[in-house]
């Protein structure tokens, strides 16, 4: 049957341009049609004021800007309405465009996801950008708006669709286009501050390739996204602060070669990414703070020769990376703090010669405690500390586990002690 046939009653063809062909003519695409087959989910649209009420029992219609939204009616036909019974936590209706504004302190609505949960696609259209995500949402209460009332990729909801059963690319694009037509901002391309945008959004299973090219602040942006297994090659070239950006993304098995060349702080950036087995050779040449950056990445078996030439703090940087067996000759020439840097790297056997030849400070407190260094490696470390010439400030070095130093290492210890160092090594020399 030809789609353009005047006898055509097929209604399921959706073009990427948001038009559905019906009976030979184009009619506006409606996201509600994505539930026509009885699919579970929800569809919220702040632009449809008839679905908004001030009280959570669906009474007292929202009529003007500044009215609170205690009831956000589901347009999918599934009666998965979002409600907020506590007055202080209700989003506020605003116009131009019509949207549910969030204070990111306590505002949110709750949906009770039915038995079986939702596993599919979420299209979230906000005042700052619109995107489609893969999601797996368990049955039970689910936040619409700020996660925990606090974390949200924008400041207002224009539209939100969640469907149990993944949307096709065309369906997702058409839904996004529909929401944008209703007033949502299409791209995140103008956003500079992504701080906490997707924090603790544990339901996100796949993240879209959105435009983050203007982003400078990625603090805690994806922290706690525990269901993400991979991450797209976003444009992070303007990013300067990646503080805790991917902390606790425990399911990430790989990480892309994103542009971090402007990054200054990588504090806790990938801490606790326990499923990462390798790490790309990203550009960290501007990075000064690597404190706890890869701490607890327990599956990392190797580490690349990244540019750490500007790094001053490496405190706890690789603490607890229990699968690391060797370490590359990174540039530590600006480093002042190595406190607990490789603590608990229980498989770490190999440290290259010369790693600390040009360091600026001698705080190696617990740096190599509970490691498995070979005799050559502990000798390499001690000789390199001698070469550094550090004879002022904090001068502490600890090693336990692995091998004791040879006579070469012992001679280095003698020199270090003569320079005021407190040195503790395996074997007790």
């Amino acid at each position, binding site marked *: 049957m030809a789609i353009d046939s005047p006898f055509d009653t097929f209604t399921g063809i959706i073009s990427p341009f948001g038009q559905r062909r019906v009976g030979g003519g184009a009619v506006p695409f409606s996201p509600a049609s994505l539930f026509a087959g009885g699919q579970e989910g929800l569809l919220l649209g702040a632009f449809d004021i008839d679905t908004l009420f001030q009280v959570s029992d669906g009474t007292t219609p929202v009529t003007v800007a500044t009215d609170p939204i205690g009831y956000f009616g589901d347009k999918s036909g599934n009666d998965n309405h979002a409600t907020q019974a506590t007055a*202080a936590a209700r989003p506020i209706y605003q116009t131009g465009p019509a949207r549910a504004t969030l204070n990111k302190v306590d505002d949110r609505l709750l949906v009770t996801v039915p038995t079986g949960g939702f596993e599919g696609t979420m299209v979230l259209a906000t005042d700052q950008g619109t995107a489609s995500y893969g999601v797996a949402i368990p049955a039970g209460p689910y936040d619409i708006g700020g996660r925990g009332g606090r974390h949200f990729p924008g400041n207002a909801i224009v539209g939100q669709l969640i469907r149990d059963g993944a949307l096709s690319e065309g369906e997702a694009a058409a839904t996004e286009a529909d929401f944008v037509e209703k007033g949502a901002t299409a791209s995140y391309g103008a956003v500079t501050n992504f701080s906490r945008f997707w924090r603790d959004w544990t339901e996100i299973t796949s993240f879209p390739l959105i435009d983050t090219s203007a982003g400078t602040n990625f603090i805690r942006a994806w922290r706690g996204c525990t269901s993400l297994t991979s991450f797209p090659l976003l444009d992070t070239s303007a990013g300067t602060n990646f503080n805790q950006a991917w902390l606790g993304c425990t399911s990430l098995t790989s990480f892309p070669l994103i542009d971090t060349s402007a990054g200054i702080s990588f504090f806790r950036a990938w801490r606790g990414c326990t499923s990462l087995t390798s790490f790309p050779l990203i550009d960290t040449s501007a990075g000064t703070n690597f404190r706890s950056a890869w701490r607890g990445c327990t599956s990392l078996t190797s580490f690349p020769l990244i540019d750490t030439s500007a790094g001053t703090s490496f405190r706890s940087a690789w603490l607890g990376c229990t699968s690391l067996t060797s370490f590359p000759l990174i540039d530590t020439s600006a480093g002042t703090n190595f406190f607990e840097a490789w603590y*608990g790297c229980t498989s770490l056997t190999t440290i290259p010669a010369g790693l600390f030849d040009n360091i600026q400070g001698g705080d190696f407190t617990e740096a190599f405690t509970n490691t498995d260094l070979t005799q050559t490696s502990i000798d390499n470390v001690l000789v390199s500390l001698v070469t550094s010439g550090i004879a002022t400030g904090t001068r502490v070095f600890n090693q336990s586990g692995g091998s004791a130093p040879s006579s070469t290492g012992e001679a280095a210890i003698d020199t270090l002690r003569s320079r005021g160092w407190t040195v503790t090594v395996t074997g007790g020399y």
Partner: protein
Amino acid sequence: MRLTIACPDALRDDANQLAMVLGYGPSDAETYVALNWQDVDGNLYACASLPVSDAFTTTAQSGLQRPAWDTDNIIDMDAARRAQAALVFSLTPVTAMPDKLTACVGDDALATLAAMGLTQVEVVTEGNDVNLVIS
């Protein structure tokens, strides 16, 4: 105007009773729940932010009456009055105090909380326990 309120841990129960008196029903007992904010001394606060009418501040500081909906005497009016006695209203942000219910006017809730000296609680241990505790 938008009012942003910082409720210290010790006043949460009383403040939720006051929220019911000034609010609309028993669900307003959930106004101050999560202790997600802290001051420089580590004191924890539950915070709320909402638009209110000009009359609200007067009402909140006047003699409290049990609301008509509370026919079952759900509200502990003594507790509500204790919270009211601890209430500090300010048209500009002032520093939150651990023995006061501090309510400040400001269009941007997050900016107001920052100006009140509060930051979001971030629980990440920094000891050398390799078994991570992250929340």
